[in-house]
């Protein structure tokens, strides 16, 4: 089936997602958006690729925790980073098919398997703030809300200081005394510069609403469940963007789901780190976890896989045991 997850990600703390850094200042990623009058306005863009990478990690974590397993280097790289292409100049369709049937996460995110790049089934659209400058690309339903909000009011700069604690006299007792070499030239002593610095980040303000869309093309119910499983992991630490160690990027989210014209407006939400799934969403997740439970003891293969011995070979190679 084809489906769409769409909704609002609301920042509950400042959000950092940088494009470039000049000296100690870092600036937000901005996309030019063409306005109706032909002018261009720069608006913050949270890359769909960033959310996609984060969800790939979350879905993989959920699967490995649920199955209580670990992976070898190549399989880990495939699950978490999308894999690599290389090795023998052969294309093994059967092996790719076996992996896709047994590991739904690979099926929806795609990746490099052997010498092939297998496409995924999802498109994580770039994410833009609900503001008047982004109206040309926002859905009509959000325009009324967006028209009264200007992007100019959504960003701010914040500075942080990194202290060189070795230079703090109060910490002097905790530093082992360096043995002075009698013939050490004074020049070398002078080169020991302070580690102290002050850096400034451009940030998206807390309280800003960002519009996000994930398109799912030709997915099964189990594969939708595989995507939703990632939100369980995401809810543990619902941060997007960088500098989460400073508390940046804490978010709430709410996605609706539409498939075959049927809308579920409260499909999935995370509020204050608490995950809520609608009954329909829970149904997809339970179908997915049932497959994970089944593959703990047996491997799945449809009638198109003729060489049954190959199933075990491919899956043993994947799990590394």
């Amino acid at each position, binding site marked *: 089936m*084809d489906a769409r997850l769409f909704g609002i990600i609301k920042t509950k703390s400042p959000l950092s997602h940088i*494009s470039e850094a000049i000296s100690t200042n870092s600036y937000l990623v901005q*996309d*030019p*958006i*063409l306005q109706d009058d*032909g002018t*261009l306005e720069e608006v913050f863009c949270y*890359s*769909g*690729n960033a959310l*996609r*990478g984060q969800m790939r*990690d979350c879905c*993989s*974590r959920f699967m*490995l925790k649920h199955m209580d397993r*670990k*992976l*070898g*280097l190549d399989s*880990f*790289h495939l699950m*978490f*980073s*999308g894999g*690599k292409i*290389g090795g023998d100049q052969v*294309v093994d*369709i059967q092996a*790719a*098919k076996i992996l*896709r049937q047994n590991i739904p996460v690979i099926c929806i995110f*795609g990746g490099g398997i052997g010498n*092939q*790049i*297998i*496409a*995924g*089934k*999802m*498109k*994580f*659209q*770039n*994410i833009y703030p609900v503001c008047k400058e982004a109206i*040309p*690309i926002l859905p009509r339903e959000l325009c009324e809300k967006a028209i009264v909000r200007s992007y100019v009011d959504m960003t701010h700069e914040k500075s942080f200081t990194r202290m060189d604690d070795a230079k703090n006299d109060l910490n002097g007792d905790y530093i082992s005394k360096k043995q002075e070499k009698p013939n050490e030239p004074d020049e070398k002593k002078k080169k020991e510069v302070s580690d102290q610095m002050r850096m400034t980040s451009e940030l998206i303000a807390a309280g800003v609403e960002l519009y996000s*869309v994930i*398109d799912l*093309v*030709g*997915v099964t119910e189990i594969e939708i469940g595989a995507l939703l499983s990632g939100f369980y992991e995401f809810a543990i630490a619902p941060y997007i963007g960088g500098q989460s160690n400073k508390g940046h990027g804490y978010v709430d989210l709410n996605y609706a789901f539409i498939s075959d014209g049927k809308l579920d407006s409260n499909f999935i939400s995370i509020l204050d780190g608490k995950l809520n799934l609608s009954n329909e969403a829970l149904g997809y997740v339970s179908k997915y976890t049932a497959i994970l439970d089944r593959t703990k003891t047996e491997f799945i293969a449809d009638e198109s896989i003729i060489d049954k011995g190959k199933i075990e070979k491919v899956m043993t190679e994947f799990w*590394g045991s």
Partner: protein
Amino acid sequence: MKPLQITAKINSFIVSDPWSPSIDSVIAYWHLFEKMGAEEFHLSASTQTGLKLIDDLPLDKFEWKNDIWWWRCSSPTYDAKDMSLKYIHRRFDQHDAESYMKSKKGNIMTKAGPYKNFRGGFNHVVAKNISWFVVGDRHEIVRLLNKCTNIGAKASAGFGQVKEWVVTENPESAELCTKRPVPLEFADESGLAYSSVLEWAFRPPFRMSENRTICAMP
């Protein structure tokens, strides 16, 4: 089959040359996706051997000679308001590796080799609309294009989102659809103007060797 103008309402997309994305390949993608089913399509699309000649698109064929034919559709036209480089990144997840990877002797090299971290730049074009002129079956083209949410490269990363597809009748399309890469011999024979000559595919799938020849580029 009628002369049509296809317009995708977008904000921006990633493209590597002025003749892409070609509408015959966009239509062919969704036509095959539907015909083969998602699984078979994705698996065969990743292989050179899985490529097959597509001859049943809802587009009119222009037949030249010796089984050489192509779809009657133009290259894209758009008014680029801005162009810039956009970067996407891929890195080895060291943090997760500590928890979910079996312990391994030695280091994992991320500056080179198969696990190399990646920062790739892509040519990002800002344009409000992108249009093509075709001769084809309007109803079927609309049905297939409505499945297409993104055009251009890096669609899975959110680039080239299509807000709306608009397909209208345009009598001039029959004439304008000649503005596309065609075999050089045909261009010289017909007196078509061209800007450059490249080895190119004159019909999809573009990676299929039978579809490639020296082409005159508009």
